[in-house]
């Protein structure tokens, strides 16, 4: 299979909430030193913590290369605002933004907004998929060269290169075009945690990066194949999808644990399979799974970020680099470049080009 694809690594920097920027900045810089593809910052309206997208916007000018992927919920928010904020994160980070689309399933979250009651996950993920869809359309709604600053005709933009999206979803509609011009990456990277069935469907249709859960390489390969097949069924190129195994990691206090290994089940707050062992054990597991072609990479959630991220970067990642399994620097500048994903052309520009030829 694709054992030779490059290895992608990402890390979650959330945990017990901090209310100052310094904490998150230190962790993001640490991940950047390890040449990781991106950091994620989880978020929810239901538990203490700052707005994740805002935190990563605060981190952006103080970092250079690391991808920045906040969780953004799509249930009680406005799709137009969501697409604008993610596009703006891409502008302020010069092409390093992604977003992890998520849903708010609880009645407690619904009461914070008072606009509607809680809905089943299937309906919420259907809506999340629509939010991802309309966001992509809004990001495309300005062609890249729409700003012309043509002093001769007095036009700042060429309005033929701006497009209405006229999106009609089940729970919302958006007319467009975007107010934010097309972001540096064309479309910021869409990440979806496809642990649950309904999320997997949305991921196969709309995600660039899919986080999955597995306890064996065989299981990971099977889920990855399933996601890729579903993506292909939606007319997408499965090769333009990155599937990362989510692991919650506890690197403990030892170099290597007496019995390193995986446990399944939602043991702690993090998502994914629970790994306990030392940094070397984790490197061995990553190398083994990746060599087996089970995944494009790993999304690691350290149970104690201050302690474990340092061990991941200076232990696990350093070892993988030493074994030439992971890069030692970011060869590109954007998150899409780190992930080996092409910068998409605007669908409206493409349609206009075709219309012109006909």
């Amino acid at each position: 299979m694709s054992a030779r694809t490059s290895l992608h690594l990402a890390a979650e920097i959330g945990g017990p909430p901090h209310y100052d920027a310094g904490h998150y900045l230190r962790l993001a810089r640490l991940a950047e030193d390890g040449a990781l593809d991106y950091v994620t910052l989880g978020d929810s309206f239901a538990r203490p913590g700052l707005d994740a997208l805002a935190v990563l916007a605060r981190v952006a000018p103080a970092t250079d290369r690391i991808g920045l992927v906040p969780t953004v919920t799509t249930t009680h928010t406005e799709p137009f605002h969501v697409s604008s904020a993610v596009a703006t994160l891409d502008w302020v980070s010069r092409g390093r933004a992604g977003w992890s689309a998520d849903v708010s399933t609880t009645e407690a979250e619904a009461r914070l907004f008072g606009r509607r009651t809680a809905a089943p996950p299937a309906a919420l993920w259907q809506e999340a998929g629509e939010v991802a869809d309309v966001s992509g359309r809004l990001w495309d709604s300005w062609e890249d060269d729409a700003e012309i600053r043509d002093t001769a005709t007095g036009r700042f933009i060429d309005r033929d290169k701006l497009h209405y999206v006229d999106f009609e979803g089940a729970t919302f509609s958006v007319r467009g075009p975007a107010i934010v011009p097309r972001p540096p990456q064309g479309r910021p990277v869409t990440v979806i945690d496809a642990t649950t069935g309904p999320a997997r469907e949305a991921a196969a249709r709309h995600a660039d990066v899919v986080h999955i859960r597995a306890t064996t390489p065989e299981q990971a390969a099977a889920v990855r194949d399933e996601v890729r097949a579903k993506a292909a069924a939606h007319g997408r190129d499965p090769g333009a999808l990155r599937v990362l195994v989510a692991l919650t990691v506890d690197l403990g206090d030892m170099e290597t644990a007496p019995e390193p290994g995986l446990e399944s089940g939602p043991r702690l707050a993090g998502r994914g399979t629970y790994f306990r062992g030392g940094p070397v054990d984790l490197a061995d597991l990553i190398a083994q799974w990746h060599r087996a072609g089970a995944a494009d990479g790993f999304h690691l959630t350290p149970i104690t970020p201050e302690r474990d991220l340092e061990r991941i970067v200076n232990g696990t990642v350093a070892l993988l680099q030493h074994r030439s399994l992971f890069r030692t620097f970011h060869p590109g500048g954007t998150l899409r470049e780190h992930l080996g994903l092409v910068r998409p052309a605007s669908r409206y520009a493409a349609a206009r080009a075709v219309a012109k030829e006909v």
Partner: protein
Amino acid sequence: MHLAAHFPGVNNTTVWADPRSRSQIDFSSFEQLARTAERGKFDFFFLAEGLRLREHNGRVHDLDVVGRPESLTVLNALAAVTDRLGLAATVNATFNEPYELARRLATLDHLSAGRAAWNVVTSSDAFTGENFRRGGYLDRADRYTRAAEFVATARELWDSWTPDGTSRPFAHEGPQFAISGEFTVPRPPQGHPVVIQAGDSDEGREFAASAADVIFTRHGTLEAGRDFYADVKARLAAYGREPGDLKIMPGVTVVTGDTDAEAQERAAGIRRQQVSPQNAILTAEQIWGTDLSAYDPDGPLPAIDPVPDSEITQGRVRHGDPFAIVARWRAISEAKGLSLRQTVIETTTRQSFIGSPRTVAAELTAFVDERAADGFILVPHLTPSGLDDFVDRVVPLLQESGAFRTEYTGSTLRSHLGLPEPVWKG
């Protein structure tokens, strides 16, 4: 005196055709203007909001508010490259919900260590509403009802954590919002982020008197400024507030030159650039309410009547009676022998302070001394270098005379503005 910097974007006061004009989107432009404002010891940096591209004659307007990043995200990034400057975001109360916005504002206040401000605006515009779940619009009266309850609800959320950091459940039950639960962010460093209200309608003034820390007004004559100032400050007592609790800051433009004459000449040049031939026709179309593309901007005014209740321009409020405006334009054009474009230049551009640095500093100081303003929000016509002259040449004079600070004395925006810390109402 208080000073703020408005990031201009692209609109009819911007001169984007100037070779010094750079991106209105790229972060480097925001960073440069914000750093200039902080170098000038300004109170805050102010961002407008865009929620729908304006339309003209049924098509996207090609030179007015074309492209803007999202305010709060830009300001969080600016918090990384500034230390003291206040960071003010315009965010609509019509197309947002209190829980989410209160959380985003509290987050900015934490990440900037107490420098956040919210410019509350409202919309009665179904055109803009087409981008949002609610779709439709609120009528004019309901807009302020919702805004007032929105601000009150946000303050309840900010107060739902005790000052020593304990989260307590909140419940708000009102005509606009019925929400309950727990807020995810501790009380912001400023207690409450600074609240700004923009606009000077009667409802707007009352809302500002009841709930705002700063009112962002239009600039008029010294006389008009004094009347406005007296009126707004007089409204505060009814809400148990002191005159110093609400700062009045008109949005103004400044053009300087070595001499007053040189500044006047530069100002005239800027006006000609602002009102390009295309812009002159577009502005006239907004008044006449009809397509005037066949007319010569350097020729006479169109000899036709305006179309009342026209929707030729979408996303911008049409002000005044078009028949009265056209009659006034005709009178000016005939009296002074002005072409269409010259008439637009004569009637539509409001340049506030023009003169040598010394003249401008004296006039600004007079506005504050005569109680016509507590300070100013400067709207430069160039991005991002439009405040360089002011900061380098006018600010030192204001500092020399003691009218403006030479150093920040506190670290929060409230401390710059001399606003009291809000009392915790747990």
